[in-house]
């Protein structure tokens, strides 16, 4: 018999209790999966103790810890010293259930100047997150000895320090920050600014082209693995255990967080674990 009259209120209350329990085991899962490094004990403990509902004092620290965890999934040997470690904002959604809270804490971190956010360009919704200190160090290291070092240092000290935006336009650069046209050209040349339209520029991560290429290749390959399997679905644990082709240069967990957070696959809870089903839309 097909019961259609649902009691959504009753189910919501029982589900609410179930979710509170799941939170405790969730932090444990992070430790088990793949090459995840152990999270700093303070943030991990704070996360479990306080429960997931409502604002927590350690909320922003928790987001920071998740960002570090995601960045640790990037391979060490492939990563040259010129590119900072990049995480994508929607990867955080796969680690934390409440998206609005994640957004809010990330904005707090951004306002404090700990993280920087960039529009990556291949997707209007993908936003890259890097730690500010890491970014500045890598950019300066790449610029040592080159002619563009001066303007880049000036840029890092003035523009990044004061405004938290993802793009700047001409009037702002010329008047507020007193850059000359030639300096702006040099900034574009070394990759810190990318053209958006006439007279405005996106802030960007220099030398991030290789990252974007590998990222898109890897995402396509992982999605292809799921799509080719029977019924276009796979258990997450199976996917983690699969041998990846040479197209996938990053750790597969990085791509799993990406596709789950961007909702390119549906996560379905089953008795055998989480099932990832390709969402075609």
């Amino acid at each position, binding site marked *: 018999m097909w019961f*259609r009259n*649902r*009691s959504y209120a*009753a189910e*919501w*209350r029982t589900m609410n209790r179930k979710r509170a329990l799941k939170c405790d085991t969730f932090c444990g899962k992070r430790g088990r999966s793949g090459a995840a490094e152990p999270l700093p004990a303070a943030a991990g403990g704070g996360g479990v103790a306080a429960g997931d509902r409502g604002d927590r004092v350690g909320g922003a620290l928790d987001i920071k810890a998740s960002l570090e965890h995601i960045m640790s999934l990037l391979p060490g040997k492939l990563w040259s010293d010129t590119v900072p470690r990049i995480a994508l904002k929607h990867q955080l959604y796969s680690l934390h259930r409440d998206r609005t809270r994640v957004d809010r804490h990330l904005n707090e971190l951004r306002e404090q100047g700990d993280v920087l956010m960039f529009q990556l360009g291949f997707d209007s919704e993908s936003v890259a997150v890097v730690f500010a200190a890491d970014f500045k160090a890598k950019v300066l290291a790449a610029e040592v000895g080159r002619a563009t070092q001066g303007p880049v240092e000036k840029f890092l000290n003035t523009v990044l320090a004061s405004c938290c935006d993802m793009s700047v336009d001409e009037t702002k650069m010329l008047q507020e920050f007193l850059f000359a046209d030639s300096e702006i050209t040099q900034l574009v040349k070394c990759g810190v600014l990318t053209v958006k339209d006439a007279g405005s520029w996106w802030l960007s991560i220099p030398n991030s082209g290789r990252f974007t290429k590998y990222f898109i290749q890897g995402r396509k390959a992982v999605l292809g693995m799921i799509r080719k399997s029977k019924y276009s679905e796979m258990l997450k644990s199976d996917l983690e255990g699969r041998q990846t082709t040479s197209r996938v240069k990053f750790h597969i967990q990085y791509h799993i967080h990406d596709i789950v957070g961007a909702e390119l696959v549906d996560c379905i809870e089953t008795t055998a674990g989480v099932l990832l089903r390709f969402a075609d839309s």
Partner: protein
Amino acid sequence: MLSGGADGVVVIYDLENHSRKPHYTCKAVCTVGRSSRHVHKFSVETVQWYPHDTGMFISSSFDKTMKVWDTETLKPAEIFQFVENVYCHQMSPIARKHSLIAVGTKNPKVQLCDLKSGSCIQVLQGHRGEVLSVKWSPRYEYILATASTDSSVRLWDVRRASGSLFTLDQFNGDPSKSSSEAANTAHNGRVNGLCFTGDGLFLLTTGTDDRMRLWETATGKNTLVNYGKVVNESRKGLKFAVSQGCSLEFAFVPCGSSVAVYAVHSGELVTMLKGHYSNVDCCEFHPDYQELYSGGKDSNILAWIPTPRPPDIEEEQDSKKGGSQVALNPAFEDAWSSSDED
């Protein structure tokens, strides 16, 4: 309850549950069927009761007409003819001083028809695409929100001749976050659903970019509540509902063949209501019964009824009659009982 179908038929149901059973079927009280002379020729898009009593209702359809019906005789008292397909209409639920019906059609101009005089008296210009949804504010009788395929949502004060009050901007006026094409848009695709919350202070909009956004109506600010991906493939307007009378407001949004229930202010997906066999097109919430009604392509209208939880029992003296602590959905309850009394 008033409902309009894709075959042009309008049916009125009696929602009262006269049988004491937990599962019941609502009977149709009267219909304007295919045999009626005045029936709509094409799909009925929007139906609405006259806000002050049930003596009259208004229906608009893809046959480019909007008809004002007398419920008793089921004959149209007034027919408004339009040049293009009518996507939606609404009459203000709280209006005392005016009886304007806002109509959204394929034409970018929003038309305001007056019920008293029987003609279209005002046109709101500003949109650049088809108007998929119009909604009056439940707080101020002159404020109207319209959503269009040009990705923008505009708020109008109909007393003002000069144009819309403001356009909702998803980036809150921050030029740095958007590309130039996306500036001043509410969504990155067509905006096809609008719903005010019960107090009229917030507006929910859904778009074909698979996002739902919550806005403050007073300022037009995007509250940045993140609901995740709200699957939306509707080419016409999407009709969804927000609960009224609950302390935590819920939005009921049709997503594919189920109805998604979101907590409005926190953005969390509470549950998915599965029961339809095909796409769900519309949802409506009854504030007095606190029930949700959803209609879909499978020709079914389903009623979703919340089961109240029995009060928590402090002490359990007799375990036989104690009752369970966990709320049991009556649909899954055992009808068999070993005791003599039911």
